[in-house]
């Protein structure tokens, strides 16, 4: 497929002429989030936030990286549809934290937390009621001693324990000559009820984002790695084939992988074109990429960039008067206005005080319009913050069906926005569950048949910028008040179609009928 064709079908079946701009109300002052991502150059990257339910009430709680300062776990006290309210717990106050991702590592039904750090990474086992215990050593996990900045997880075929990929940045002890000092990325594979010593994912090129993704719908996710060209020598973006029982292997130019060298900082994936294959947003500096397969039928990982054609370059501030190029970090696809089209949020902020790049660099909220183009709406939506952003999450914090937003800023406190739009399009939120290993079905695909069009929604843990969520999968439905939905479970089993009513929550247990869910009270 040529890129104009890809663009032409970027959105299938869209009916509205222009995207409805959602309205966000900033509730930073009252929400109770106090952790600051602090520190000197050792924390110029990272600054992640994890969203997951540690209390068991279904509402996403938040864990915030603190950089050189203490990190913080916040219990979500918000009422459904109400103001965003959080209460800090004393459960986790690790220092040196750059990011975190939730994952039920031991498949006990309670979400655990992978904490990336300057220093030894930690695996925190969830005990319920937002309590945790450090199981790093008990699970045989080598936390290492590096500047960890990227993470992705998957259950490889047949495994009852996850495989964890960790990306590392420059040698932090190299204070004079950091260029070319990228340290090894690691692949932690299972060994019994724990982890084997990590494999080095070499060559390593200063990864700032990683994502297991089934790019060719083979059922075997590969590992995409986005790398920061500021510090590597001879590096590029990477796609690792991770075959069970086999050493990791990089896809090559002969196989179709094209060299791309950017200041890779974040990865977001979603099928925007409706062909079932994910597109990838890659954040960088002065330019951002939106990749689609050149020819999906070829089976080759050969991508072309459609960011310019799609209006998704987000290369320069669009408000505030600073015309210097932008610096982009966390990227996430989500349907923020429930119009049935996936939009793109990008967190922006200068590395520190780089004079070539914008100091006043507003976050982007790119709304997908009916013609497939992305339309900037960050300022109109009220989220065009000029703080120095890093990690972020777009998720429904008060379970009203409208996505909210939390952004981690360097040196300053995080910001949080409640979506306060008038009710508009319909939505659906689901959680997957299965017995045995991989309780949350990480790696599954949710297929939605809406108005005759098939949508693909991947359930992944990884990507973004040091930030990840595990919990309700939000799907915007537009005008549809019911859709058909099925799950392709990890391992490839295709579940039955279920008719789902809009504007509700449902838990899909493998082999069972959907179970409606409502928060207490």
């Amino acid at each position: 497929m040529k890129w104009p064709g890809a663009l032409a079908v970027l959105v299938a079946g869209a009916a509205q002429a222009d995207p409805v701009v959602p309205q966000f109300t900033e509730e930073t002052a009252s929400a109770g989030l106090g952790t600051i991502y602090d520190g000197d150059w050792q924390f110029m990257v990272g600054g992640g936030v994890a969203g997951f339910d540690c209390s068991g009430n279904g509402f996403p709680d938040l864990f915030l990286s603190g950089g050189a300062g203490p990190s913080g776990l916040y219990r979500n006290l918000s009422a459904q549809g109400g103001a965003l309210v959080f209460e800090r717990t004393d459960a986790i106050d690790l220092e040196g934290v750059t990011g975190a991702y939730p994952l039920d590592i031991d498949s006990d039904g309670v979400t655990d937390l992978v904490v990336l750090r300057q220093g030894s990474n930690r695996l925190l086992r969830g005990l319920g009621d937002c309590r945790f215990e450090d199981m790093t050593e008990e699970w045989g996990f080598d936390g290492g001693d590096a500047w960890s900045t990227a993470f992705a997880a998957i259950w490889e075929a047949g495994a009852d324990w996850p495989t964890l990929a960790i990306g590392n940045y420059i040698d932090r002890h190299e204070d004079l000559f950091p260029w070319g000092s990228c340290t090894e990325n690691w692949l932690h594979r299972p060994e019994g009820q724990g982890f084997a010593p990590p494999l080095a994912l070499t060559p390593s090129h200063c990864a700032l984002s990683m994502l297991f993704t089934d790019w060719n719908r083979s059922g075997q996710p590969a590992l995409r790695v986005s790398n920061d060209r500021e510090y590597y020598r001879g590096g590029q973006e990477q796609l690792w084939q991770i075959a069970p029982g086999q050493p990791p292997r990089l896809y090559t130019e002969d196989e179709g992988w094209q060299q791309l060298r950017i200041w890779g900082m974040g990865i977001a994936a979603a099928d925007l074109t409706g062909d079932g294959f994910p597109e990838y947003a890659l954040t960088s500096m002065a330019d951002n990429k939106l990749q689609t397969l050149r020819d999906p039928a070829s089976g080759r990982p050969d991508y072309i960039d459609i960011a310019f054609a799609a209006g998704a370059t987000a290369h320069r501030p669009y408000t505030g008067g600073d015309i210097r190029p932008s610096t982009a970090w966390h990227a996430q696809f989500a349907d923020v206005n429930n119009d049935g089209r996936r939009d793109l949020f990008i967190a922006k902020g200068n590395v520190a005080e780089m004079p070539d790049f914008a100091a006043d660099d507003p976050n982007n909220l790119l709304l997908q319009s009916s013609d497939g183009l992305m339309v900037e709406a960050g300022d109109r939506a009220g989220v065009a913050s000029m703080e120095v952003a890093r990690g972020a999450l777009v998720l429904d914090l008060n379970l009203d069906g409208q996505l909210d937003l939390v952004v981690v800023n360097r040196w300053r406190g995080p910001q949080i926005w409640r979506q306060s739009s008038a009710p508009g399009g319909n939505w659906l939120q689901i959680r997957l569950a299965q017995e045995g290993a991989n309780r949350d079905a990480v790696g599954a695909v949710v297929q939605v048949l809406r108005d005759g069009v098939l949508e693909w929604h991947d359930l992944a843990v990884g990507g973004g910028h040091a930030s990840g969520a595990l919990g309700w999968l939000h799907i915007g439905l537009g005008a549809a008040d019911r859709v058909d939905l099925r799950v392709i479970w990890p391992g490839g089993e295709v579940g039955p179609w279920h008719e789902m009513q809009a504007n509700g929550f449902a838990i899909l247990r493998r082999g069972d009928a959907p179970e409606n869910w409502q928060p207490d009270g």
Partner: protein
Amino acid sequence: MTLDRRLFLATGLCALTRPAFARDPGREALAREVLVTWHRLVLELVRHTATYSPPVAARAFGYLGVVAHETLAAMDPALRSLGGQLNGLARPHVSEPQADKALALHSALSDAAGVLFGNTGPMGQRAHGTMTARLGADLATELDHETRTRSAALGQRITAHVLDWAAGDGGAEVANMGFALDYTAGPRPEDWQPTSLIRQQQAPLLPDWGRVRPFAMPADAICGVALPPAYDTQPGSEFHSAALEVHEVTARLTEEQKLIARFWADPPMLSPTPPGHWIAILLDIADRDDLPVETLAAALARLGAAQADAFIACWDAKYRYNLLRPVTYIRHHIDPDWTPLIETPPFPEYPSGHSTQSSASATALSAIFGEDFAFEDRTHLGDGLPARHFPSFRAASEEAAMSRLYGGIHYRFGNEAGLAQGRCVGAYAAALEMRA
């Protein structure tokens, strides 16, 4: 010597900062090491700072070379100041024969690098600060207070003098990484059109760079180029044939030709840029041949002036002719699916910038080292590209020019015009008098 980090650490700064520093055989050799070490750092800063497109990098290298030579000239009456020789530069009228060369150079280069390469990011700033403090402290160890003070002050004074001169050349302020904020394509079919999918590069790079004040080349006698072939879309015409040659050559590239294209690609932010490539060549020669510090400083000043002037002359010509790139022509008139081997730079084609500046560099270096001076180019070892051996600077410049045809980003006539223009430009730098 290459830009490889391990080699750098093994032979450069570490040699100066380890305790054995005090046993170094002489301050003269130490002064040369200071000069090399600072230049190796700025090569990294150029690679990792967005401002430094090739013309901007060449300008900064040029002034840094002048700072080095003028600092030494202020201590050595056998050297001739470039004041009065370079456009608008007055003699500093400073004489400090008792100053220490190593510390004076360190002081001068630290200050100069802090301004000329000041757009670097936090790690570059940190490296600059660490280098300044650590190297400065080590260099001062064996010196008495008066010598330390005199040497540091000399370096600072020379740098201030040169930077004051540099500030008025029209190239000191570079906004938006050098890209115009708006651009309206010219009306002629041969006018340059954007070739990149990067939004920022829909406007060309540094359209006014041709008006920057040159170093050695007279501002009112900028080296020009002959008219390019008349634009024509008819098969068999000179222009069509030139484009067809690009298409045909790139269709049957040998592995060696692909390697040559990539070796001289020198893309901004992924390499020290084309002018940095030639600086790296000179630094390697300095290490290999133990060049005296005065010789190296003079060579850096000459090379820097030649390169800076080359980009000024080349950019002046580029925007006079505003010629479209091969990728634009070929896709419209020969093969709509054609893609060049390397990325097409975001500015007009004629003449080839790498050809102009490589030819100017070769002219300047040949004037110093001779026409048949063989050397090994190890610039890209750290990026996995093997060293290349050249029998002369001229041969290297000609290969650099040909690499643009292999890469599919220039017509042959653009390369040849660049080589000729570079010879003209380089002659001015070669004529500079470095000794009294």
